[in-house]
């Protein structure tokens, strides 16, 4: 891939809280725990079972004596357990890309932030099938002594949540104050409220829906096709070689388009040319938007496993909250006992606000405690990582509004 166009036009300068700042959780480290083994394998929705399963997770803030102040954060497609804070030595952890930036939701998690670590013990774990410390297709298959590759079983959001339940139980936590996430993370939060109604006081579901739209399924199908049709894919057994870098890059480029909005792209790129002049009359990329996508793709290929991309997008495709009601969302919602906060973003065309509102009404028809807010934003789906002020207001109000229904 050409490196000449790795430009980041008009990228808003991100301001991070440094590890020494009072609003940062500071330096953190990933922990590892084995949650399935020979004696206690993890049964999967597909009918198979898997063992061993190791889970990487991080913890911010203190778990109190009663172990009743924990919040579980769920990450999205390309996320990891590193939701907040800084690594001392990202190189040594094998994640050099994390040397200069904090966890992916650092602006929401920390002392005095939306998920206030002075009050709550915040936990985040990497999903099953991922590539950031939790067992996935790049892990060694004990049956062959080689990486699983495509021999890894197909996993679902339900499987992820059942594994997370093992983590929470192993930490001695019976009830969670809240489960929270955006995008695919929001669907895990919803799955938690459905699968373990008695163990979550509340769920915060952001930029997410009860199921992925057909349009979303279509994007994921194209992304997977880009990976599997790369000649370097080698049926998923590419761990000895470079792997399907081109395919994964295309998948990420496509994904990125769906995370932005027409207006945010126009503001960011404005049809500008990379060289600042005009058309180069050549077929190579010469618009800034092309350079941006290439840059995003390149950095993604360096940090993500293509097989994990296949498995995680498949899990996103299969997720359907109505399955808990035999295909009837209203019936599924009967199960829920938690307070629910739903948040959508006006310009999100991947997880549409109207679909979120439908979920809100399904909960309302079941007389559940549900609140729904639609944040006006131009950022598209990515807004769940960017609209920090409004999200903070909602999350804080919701968490604190739980204890009281007074004025």
């Amino acid at each position, binding site marked *: 891939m050409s490196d000449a166009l790795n430009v980041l036009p008009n990228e808003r300068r991100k301001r991070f809280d440094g590890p020494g700042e009072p609003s940062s959780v500071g330096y953190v480290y990933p922990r590892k725990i084995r949650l399935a083994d020979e004696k206690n394998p993890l049964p999967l929705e597909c009918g198979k079972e898997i063992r061993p399963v190791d889970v990487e997770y991080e913890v911010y803030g203190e778990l109190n004596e009663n172990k009743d102040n924990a919040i579980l954060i769920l990450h999205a497609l390309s996320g990891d357990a590193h939701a907040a804070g800084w690594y001392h030595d990202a190189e040594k952890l094998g994640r050099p890309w994390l040397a200069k930036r904090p966890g992916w939701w650092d602006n929401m998690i920390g002392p005095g932030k939306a998920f206030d670590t002075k009050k709550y013990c915040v936990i985040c774990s990497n999903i099953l099938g991922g590539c950031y410390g939790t067992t996935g297709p790049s892990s060694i298959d004990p049956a062959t002594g080689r990486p699983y590759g495509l021999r890894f079983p197909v996993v679902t959001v339900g499987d992820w949540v059942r594994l997370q339940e093992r983590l929470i139980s192993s930490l001695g936590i019976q009830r969670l104050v809240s489960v929270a996430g955006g995008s695919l993370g929001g669907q895990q939060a919803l799955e938690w409220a459905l699968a373990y109604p008695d163990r979550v006081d509340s769920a915060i579901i952001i930029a997410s829906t009860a199921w992925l739209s057909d349009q979303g399924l279509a994007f994921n199908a194209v992304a997977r096709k880009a990976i599997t049709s790369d000649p370097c894919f080698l049926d998923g057994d590419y761990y000895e070689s470079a792997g399907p870098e081109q395919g994964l890059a295309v998948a990420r480029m496509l994904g990125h388009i769906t995370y932005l909005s027409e207006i945010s792209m126009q503001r960011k790129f404005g049809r500008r040319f990379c060289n600042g002049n005009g058309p180069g009359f050549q077929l190579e990329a010469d618009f800034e938007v092309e350079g941006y996508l290439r840059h995003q793709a390149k950095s993604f290929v360096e940090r993500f496993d293509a097989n994990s991309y296949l498995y995680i997008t498949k899990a996103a495709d299969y997720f359907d909250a109505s399955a808990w009601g035999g295909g009837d969302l209203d019936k599924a919602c009967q199960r829920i006992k938690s307070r629910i906060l739903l948040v959508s973003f006006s310009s999100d065309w991947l997880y549409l606000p109207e679909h979120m509102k439908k979920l809100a009404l399904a909960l309302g028809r079941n007389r559940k405690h549900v609140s729904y807010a639609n944040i006006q934003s131009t950022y598209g789906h990515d807004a769940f990582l960017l609209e920090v002020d409004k999200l903070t207001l909602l999350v804080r109000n919701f968490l604190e509004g*739980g204890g009281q229904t007074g004025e």
Partner: protein
Amino acid sequence: MNKQYRFDHKVIYDLIPAGNSVLDLGCGNGELLSKLIRHKGVQALGIEKDFDLVAEAIARGVPVIQSDLDEGLAGLPDHFFDYVILEKTLQAVKKPLLVLEEMLRVGRYGIVSFPNFGHRQVVLSLLRTGRMPVTPSLPYQWHDTPNIHLFTALDFLDWASANKVRVERGFSWTGNGTVQFKEEESAFAVEVLFVVSKEG
């Protein structure tokens, strides 16, 4: 809408029986619903279109769905709530008839309150100055008022009788106190409140 005139708050609070289900259309910051939840154990839901007010209602522990009333209440079943409240909101929506119909579809009873444009002070002010009245209950200039449909207590009653809507109760706020609404004294009502239901 304006904080000084909360006569309807008190009347509505007293009208709603404990344990009933209540939908508040244009619930604002959720103040009324939070009182009803806390003291009367009602099953409550608010609808509000303004994001900041939605956030405030959430802080009060009130379940609230951000939505524009002019889009109707599709998704909420018929007669799902015992009471549907429309507190000083009707004059601010684009499609008042749609909102009234939806209110009586999803609720057994509707509670509607609004500033009475037929109050004599309003009428006299218009007559005397030749300009749109600005009063404590209609405190806005013509160009920045959220009240885009102005009507009188009698206009509302005409609509009710033409649409087979039964008026169960009526109250007037006279500026000094709350009294039973009487048609012949409607010019003395600064604000009015009606409990309505669909006939048949």
